[in-house]
């Protein structure tokens, strides 16, 4: 085993040397700062980092802060609907485009275009569209439909769905592109065979094609999940967490405490909670994606 390992290292020496700078950056700049944040979450740091030890005080305060709990709840709602709708919509779009429609490249561009925009722009656009003073409601009132109400961004109960709408609009195109790429890779022989057997198309998709696209599906789910966890800019641009705290998200809680409220201890505690959550959610995915496969190959 040891001999095999050293032979392996020798053979790939150049590759390892090439990877070294990146590895150093990851270890020090990435993992290092992560460890530092976790360390600070156990301190009483306010404006400046302090290196005392206050145990789990910051965590106790954190889970006693209504705004943090609201943020977590909001994130759960956003995560559920965003993942579900984005994935279903993206997949359906990909399947429709895959039916050899006319002007396919036009549709592809149109659907993928939102993804080329930053979250800030997406948030601003939807803020304007849904703003009762400027957007659709205003226009409809101008047309004479004065009973028309579309006040999602200013309505505490609907604001989360406005955020979901904007993020789905932004992200569905990416799923579409990934799945479409996968669909194009499916052997036409499979389609021919199922047609001979007389299997309905939806059944082929559900039972044969989609399972074949497992890597694409996992990739798009991972990408979507990442954008959920770091969801910040879209909320800031669209609602700034309001009305009240109705659309607060954890990343915004962290940023506010870090930069505006001079509360580094609490902010790092919150980011540690997010880190642990992400690790818990991602671990099984990463495991199934990479380790199991490589295990099978060797």
């Amino acid at each position, binding site marked *: 085993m040891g001999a095999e390992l050293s032979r392996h290292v020798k053979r790939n020496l150049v590759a390892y040397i090439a990877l070294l700078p990146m590895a150093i950056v990851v270890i020090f700049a990435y993992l290092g700062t992560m460890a530092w944040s976790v360390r600070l979450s156990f301190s009483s740091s306010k*404006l400046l980092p302090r290196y005392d030890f206050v145990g789990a005080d910051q965590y106790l305060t954190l889970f006693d802060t209504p705004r943090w709990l609201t943020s977590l709840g909001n994130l759960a709602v956003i995560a559920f609907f965003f993942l579900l709708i984005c994935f279903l919509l993206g997949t359906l779009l990909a399947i429709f485009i895959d039916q050899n429609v006319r002007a396919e490249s036009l549709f592809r561009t149109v659907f993928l275009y939102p993804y080329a925009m930053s979250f800030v722009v997406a948030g601003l656009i939807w803020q304007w569209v849904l703003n009762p003073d400027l957007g659709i409601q205003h226009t409809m009132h101008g047309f004479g439909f004065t009973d028309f109400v579309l006040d999602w961004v200013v309505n*505490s109960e609907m604001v989360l769905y406005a955020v979901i709408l904007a993020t789905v609009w932004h992200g569905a195109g990416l799923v579409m592109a990934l799945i479409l790429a996968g669909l194009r890779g499916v052997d036409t022989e499979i389609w021919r065979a199922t047609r001979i057997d007389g299997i309905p198309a939806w059944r082929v998709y559900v039972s044969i094609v989609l399972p074949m696209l497992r890597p694409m599906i996992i990739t798009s789910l991972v990408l979507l999940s990442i954008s959920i966890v770091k969801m910040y800019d879209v909320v800031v641009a669209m609602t700034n967490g309001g009305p009240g705290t109705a659309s607060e998200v954890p990343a915004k809680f962290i940023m506010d*405490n870090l930069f505006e409220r001079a509360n580094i201890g609490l902010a790092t505690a919150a980011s540690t909670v997010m880190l642990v959550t992400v690790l818990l959610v991602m671990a099984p995915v990463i495991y199934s994606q990479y380790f199991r496969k490589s295990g099978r190959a060797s």
Partner: protein
Amino acid sequence: MIGMKQMVAVSVIAIVAATGVAKAEEPLKAEVIHWWTSGGESAAIKVFADAFNAAGGEWMDNAVAGGSAARSAAINRIVGGDPSTAALFNTSRQYHEIIGEGLLNDIDEVATKNNWDKVLPEPIAKAVKVDGKYYAAPVNIHMPLWIWYSSAALSKAGVEKPPETMDEFFAALDKLKAAGITPLALGGQRWQENSLFSAVLTNVGGGELWKSVYGDKDEAAIRSPEFRKVIETFISLKPYVDQASPGRNWNDTTALLIKDEAGFQVMGDWAKGEFKQANKEIGKDYGCIPGLRPDSPYVLGGDVFVFPKTDDAEQVKAQHLLVETMTSPDVQVKFNNLKGSIPIRADVDMSNLDACAQLGMKIMSDPARQAPDASQMMEESVYGSVQDIVTELWNTPMTVDQAVERFEKALKG
């Protein structure tokens, strides 16, 4: 013929003399980090820059957009050991921790020379003086809780004179509502909702309650019927705000008054800039109400410059020159006229100030009515929690009991 030796000697002397002269004329360089980037603000800070340059300095402007971004930049540079000469902060506790860590130079020398103990209003002096030493130079006083009104909107609704008490205020709101005008213009952002709450607290509760709840964090005051009344009054303002309020910027909100589409707005004196830009006149098109009770407190907010620690004698000299020029009476008047705030000292020529600023100066001259801004009475993290409560109180059906309980926990905890 002059020998080689003499020639060398002469030229050496010449060079030394030249550099000596250059050294004496070298201006004192001062790099200043601030966040005043809007039209009126940058015109205002240019007054400082010009005055400093005229006094033999060289102003190096380092504007960072956004208050918290600018403060983070200043703090990062201080902690990183490469501080600027001066940095802008709000008159609050934002900079008290860096004083505690010994990262700022005190400016006691200039302060004593200029008799700050006498000149500055007490709440401002308290905010910049730590452990008996002055650490920050206040440059302006903003009163964040003015009540602005549109004269046309009021007269259209049949409100004959601007309200002077809370009851008259509510009567005016009702009339505006009946006339189909948005009675109270509010931008539904956390800080604006908090301004409205502060205005209710100072005008319904009064200066004593303001100081005992936010300053002393006195449990009895928080649980008192007076504070409950403040919360109730705040809640009862909800129906007077238009539906599109959430998330609206303060200047878009002021625009509603400029267009006579709304009656009142609670906003700091920087709102004047918006009216001025729209060519509106004080007294004719719009007006300012400092408070709704004869003894309403005049809340003193504003901005200060701090001076990061350095041993470089030139830099210390530059820091002192900055303080001198920025707080001198005529620079104060010129600067504050552009900034919309009022000067930090009463010994200035007031004839150049606008009507609202003159009214403010007059009220501020009574020490009994001076009150510190909420951010001077508590740490930023505590103030943040207070603002969270206010915004939830405004946007959710929270009861008065729940609100009192949460205020107590946030302020005491």
